[in-house]
């Protein structure tokens, strides 16, 4: 097997200075959400570790995650793809390549068995043996299972790959679901979002690439460094929430003044993501900053938690949200209690009358 290059080897080959290399490593460290004392470890890994082989496959999805990915500013997506990972296979970039490339996928899987990173975008389509999502003559679930079970780690990019995505919305005609069930014993990193933040996407793959391990994960398998905070708790509009200053409609003075969007259905209080601190496109903005309430796109089932412009989902149509259901229940109970009380009084009166009658008969 030919010698695989490390990131440092590649920098040397391109004639880039040691200084540039170390600067890149520092940038990478902060990008991965690590503390600065980890820089030396990152440098060491970048010097010695051969570039990680990455296989990138796509299922049921819109490729919006890739749209997000290519907008990564630090590192640039081009840097990552060309000099920090060895991207051997990608459905999207090689859509027109045909059979030789399919053969290359098989070759890659065999050659780097148990060493490569598998990135998956899109849901697994499970209904009718997965016939609703096929490429290269195989169902996506077949390719996914084969590639995932031979990988070192699987990264599930986007809410589709994590929990089914928009196509899993009721009634879910294609049986779309997250990909974790097909990964066997291979560790899975969930990177939800619709799409995930570009820097989060590059950051996670770099972490796995450099350290060879999955980053610390929370209870839902998401990397803690990016999904450790609620958007609500990191939101720059939080002071307006605390003060009770809410936009009541999308065109009122509160909305124009940038007040809290809680009453307009903001899902920030239930959503874990880095939008509040990293923001999007090199910190330019994020949905709430642009005046649109968070829709909770990194939550499973966000597509079914409507209406998105109202605080509580209306699962209980036609009555309404959970509080309206509760109020109806309480009112019904009160009416029932009143009816029962009236009936009890009637029953008691009848009983006393009967007893008197019996006593009278006895004497």
């Amino acid at each position, binding site marked *: 097997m030919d010698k695989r290059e490390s990131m440092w080897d590649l920098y040397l080959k391109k004639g880039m200075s040691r200084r540039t290399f170390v600067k890149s490593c520092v940038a990478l460290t902060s990008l991965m959400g690590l503390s600065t004392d980890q820089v030396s470890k990152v440098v060491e890994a970048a010097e010695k570790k051969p570039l990680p082989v990455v296989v990138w496959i796509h299922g049921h999805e819109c490729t919006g995650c890739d749209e997000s990915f290519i907008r990564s500013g630090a590192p640039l997506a081009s840097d990552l793809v060309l000099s920090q990972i060895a991207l051997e296979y990608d459905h999207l970039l090689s859509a027109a390549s045909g059979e030789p490339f399919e053969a290359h996928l098989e070759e890659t899987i065999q050659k780097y068995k148990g060493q490569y990173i598998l990135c998956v975008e899109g849901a697994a389509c499970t209904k009718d043996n997965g016939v609703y999502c096929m490429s290269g003559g195989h169902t996506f679930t077949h390719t996914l299972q084969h590639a995932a079970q031979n990988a070192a780690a699987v990264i599930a990019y986007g809410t589709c790959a994590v929990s089914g995505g928009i196509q899993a919305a009721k009634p879910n005609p294609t049986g779309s679901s997250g990909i974790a069930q097909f990964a066997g014993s291979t560790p899975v990193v969930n990177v939800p979002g619709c799409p995930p933040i570009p820097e989060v996407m590059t950051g996670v793959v770099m972490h796995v690439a450099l350290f060879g391990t999955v980053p610390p994960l*929370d*209870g*839902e398998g998401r990397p*803690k460094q990016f999904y*450790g*905070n*609620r958007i609500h*708790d990191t939101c720059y509009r939080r002071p307006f*929430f*605390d*003060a*009770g*200053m*809410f936009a*009541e409609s999308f065109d009122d003075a509160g909305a124009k003044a940038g007040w809290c969007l*809680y*009453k307009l259905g903001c*899902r920030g*209080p*239930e*959503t*874990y993501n880095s939008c509040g601190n990293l923001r999007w496109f090199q910190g330019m903005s994020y949905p709430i900053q642009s005046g649109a309430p968070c829709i*909770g796109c990194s*939550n*499973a*089932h966000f597509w079914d*938690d409507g209406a998105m412009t109202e*605080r*509580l*989902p209306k*699962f209980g149509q036609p009555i309404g949200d*959970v*509080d309206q*259901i*509760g*109020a109806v*229940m*309480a009112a019904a*109970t*009160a009416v029932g*209690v009143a009816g*029962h*009380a009236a*009936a*009890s009084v009637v*029953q*008691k009166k009848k*009983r006393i009358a009967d007893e008197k009658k019996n006593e009278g008969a006895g004497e």
Partner: protein
Amino acid sequence: MKEEKRKIYYLFSPYLRIFHWIMVLAIIVLFITGLLVTKPVTVLGIEPTYTSMSMDWVRNIHFIAAFAFCAAFILRIYGFIVNKGDRLFPRVWEGHFYSETIDVALHYMLLKPHHAPFLRNPLARASYAGLYAMVLVEILTGFAMYYMTEPSNIGGILFSWVNVVLGGEMMTHWVHHIVAWLIIVFAIGHVYMVLRADIMEAEGEASSMFSGVKFLEHVPKDAGEVEPPKTEK
């Protein structure tokens, strides 16, 4: 006028009684502030920052009431240990529980004019077990939301699983709401049943939560579970 001979049974320890009234207060405060957190009122004519209805206040009152309620369980548990009358768990492991529950239920369905005398009837005891179960759900879902501001701290570690089990934090909110309403439904039924029993049977049902005693004419079926009656009247 018929002379009634009644016996005084000591049932509820002061710990249980104090706990009960803390619970009443806490549930009222938690319920009102909880609704205000979900649907904040719009305060007109005054700068929101200076109102006493600010989210910060409402939330803090909600949290303080919640912690006070949880702390009050110490009283309940202590009472449970020291006083037989506080042990209200329905005796589901004893066969007669079921027949007695049916008997009492038939009475409340107005199908039977009387039910056998109880100090604490099995239907009521089962409903209290249900209430505690609902309170437990509220505590678990409440802390799951509260502590997830910092998922890596001890509270987050202890309670984050609730969000995973329920399938996402939106569901945790949903469950927290619906169970809060179920507790209100329980409260309506509970107050009605207590007042009804007090009026119909005159055994001191309502006052027992202040005095700790009930007055019974007949020997109740569960008399063996508590101290024998102290004085005769």
